[in-house]
């Protein structure tokens, strides 16, 4: 595995290898010596052409815990958005000797362009591209689900996950549908018809417009962020109506199975897609998703740059 561009590039054993590696690395992070020397002398560039403090910090922490040198290239408001081409940026990073580029970009497919062109030779890691995919988010979500509902091992067979909200514009949803299926889980998408893409009927997922019908039947509810500008674009009438039908509130929380968990990739709109009491409830694993994110991103860097996953238990 050289790049991580899309979950569709992974086999089931690739995905499990990444999750197992993350499990092992999480143990290291919990120990007294947080840092591993694995990537000493390697240069990793965080190329962020779109705002995303949390994903950038998560990758930065992951790289540093593996002793890599990290260069942050926040391109928003600088060259990339001011007409410097992706090609020129890639060639610059190549000239600086980047071993891996972690790219967040507003254009779907930008990481593919980096990886498949001859512009640079290092590994490319997709940290979220347009409305396409966000593979590291899906991996950390699967890691979190596995930890809570599958004893932290094996796949997710038999589990049922609802993904609720703006599926149309969500890279998190696209990556999660692919990965949850790869790991054997069942997926139900819940959204107003306007926020489901044409063609979604060909995805490996059930579709529902009725959150209330779904919420009691699933093991995890993954809420998606809804951007305020979607109202101006006529996807739904207003925030109140959206919350009424598609928000996760206390009443819906009560309908959930006793073991099921509440997830959100962040940042949340408290009061819109999720109420504050639900976000802060005992069911919520939202904060834990963030800490799991570092372990999973360490695993991604480890597997891509050190060349192989770590077997479960081998670091002990």
């Amino acid at each position, binding site marked *: 595995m050289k790049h991580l561009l899309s979950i569709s590039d992974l086999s089931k054993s690739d995905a499990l290898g990444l999750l197992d590696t993350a499990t092992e690395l999480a143990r290291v992070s919990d120990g007294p010596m947080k840092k591993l020397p694995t990537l000493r002398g390697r240069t990793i560039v965080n190329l962020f052409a779109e705002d995303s403090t949390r994903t950038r910090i998560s990758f930065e922490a992951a790289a540093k815990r593996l002793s890599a040198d990290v260069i942050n290239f926040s391109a928003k408001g600088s060259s990339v958005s001011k007409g410097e081409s992706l090609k020129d940026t890639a060639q610059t990073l190549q000239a600086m000797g980047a071993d891996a580029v972690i790219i967040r970009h507003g254009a779907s*497919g930008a990481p593919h*362009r980096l990886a498949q062109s001859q512009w640079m030779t290092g590994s490319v890691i997709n940290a979220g591209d347009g*409305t*396409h995919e966000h593979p590291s988010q899906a991996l950390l979500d699967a890691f979190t689900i596995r930890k809570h509902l599958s004893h932290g091992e094996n796949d997710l067979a038999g589990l049922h996950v609802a993904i609720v909200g703006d599926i149309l514009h969500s890279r998190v949803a696209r990556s999660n549908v692919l990965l949850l299926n790869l790991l054997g889980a069942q997926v139900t998408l819940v959204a107003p018809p306007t926020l489901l893409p*044409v*063609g979604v009927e060909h*995805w490996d997922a059930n579709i529902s417009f009725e959150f209330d019908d779904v919420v009691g039947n699933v093991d995890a509810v993954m809420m998606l962020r809804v951007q305020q500008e979607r109202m101006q674009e006529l996807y739904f009438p207003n925030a109140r109506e959206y919350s009424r039908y598609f928000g996760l509130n206390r009443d819906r929380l009560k309908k959930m199975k006793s073991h099921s968990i509440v997830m959100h990739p962040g940042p949340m709109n408290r009061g819109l897609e999720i109420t504050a009491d639900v976000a802060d409830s005992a069911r919520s694993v939202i904060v834990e998703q963030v800490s799991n994110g570092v372990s999973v991103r360490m695993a991604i860097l480890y597997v891509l740059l050190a060349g192989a996953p770590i077997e479960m238990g081998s670091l002990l």
Partner: protein
Amino acid sequence: MNKNIFHLKGGSLASGEKRDVVISEGIIKEIGVSITSPEGALVLDVSDSIILSGLVDLHTHLREPGKEDSETVRSGSRAAAKGGFTAISAMANTSPVADTAGVVEQVFRLGKDAGYCDVFPIGAITQGLHGRELSEMGAMADSAARVRIFSDDGNCVSDPMVMRRALEYVKSFDGLIAQHAQDPTLTLDAQMNEGVVSSVLGLKGWPAVAEEAIIARDILLADHVKSRLHICHVTTAGGVEIIRWAKSRGMNVTAEVTPHHLLLTDELARSYDPIFKVNPPLRTEKDIMALREALCDGTIDIVATDHAPHPAESKECEWQEAAFGMLGLETALSIVQKTMVDSGLMNWVDVQNRLSIQPAAIARYQSQGLEVRVGNRANLTVINPGKSWKVDRDLVASRSRNTPFHSMDLPGVVTETFFNGRATLLRGELVQEMSS
């Protein structure tokens, strides 16, 4: 040896009949079996080849004036000659826009100067292609360029009242309104065909209905005011159905399909390589099959290239930043052979109709699209259908390299093109200087 006397020996006409053809004094001088070569003639053995009436393209982007780094009238004319075309139609979306007699006359004169083919300018329907005020279509029609096709191509004339007025206005000089059918609000920031592939790639969808709704509206408008309407680059099965219905009612509408929409599908977008980004977008296999059938049964009248050159930097970037469009002139006939002839749907008489006779008739290009007959102007294309070639973007005559067919093996090699009795392409090589 007189360089303008040619004896094409042993070739086939579109009908399949084996005939020698002699070209002299700009016309087809003689057609017969085993003709003795006239004095001074260049004898060309074309016994493996087919002699067609010269190809006529009604949809060509030449980029001059304004973007001469992508294409000039001369470089585009050379690409045309290499692809077997003897007439091309320069779209109006240059800079400045071809919305005055001055600009169309300039393009027309540049075409004459280049000398590789007829370059017939298309005039803009509205000033600046903005879709609001009509351009001086009368002046363009009366100019030396004798403009008869008007189009805002690249933009849709979306306001129905503007479209109605344009259709009415051109009736006085037998003009033709060629519509780029794309509802702008349904395709805001659209990137590719809306469907299964766009849903997976997260690229903003371009629904078929955005094309079909405009086609339906304009057919009804044209029928209401009894004018002539031409639908540019039809891409959807639904659009085909609407045109078929209109023709069955005797409505005066014609339509074109591009070679790339006959062959390529939206699956190619999975590479995120913008070489496959084009307006209108590549559609699905089902649409391709409907387009082929429609071209075969005449619902779609002609093939037009929508040749759209772009510089490297406009394609070496993210998909959503890239320009729309692909080269077409040099590969058109091969793609038509591959998709329509080799598949058994059409014969070479049909090809000659769809790529030469019909387009010239629709556009009223009287010196073009004539049957291969003694006395007719010698605008001819010679293709060897039994040979194949590999497309190489580094070897194109166009000034740009954005062909989606790079490294593809295609059937049919155009070996000769004759424009007004002079060879522009000879034994597969462009004649280096045509200006007299």
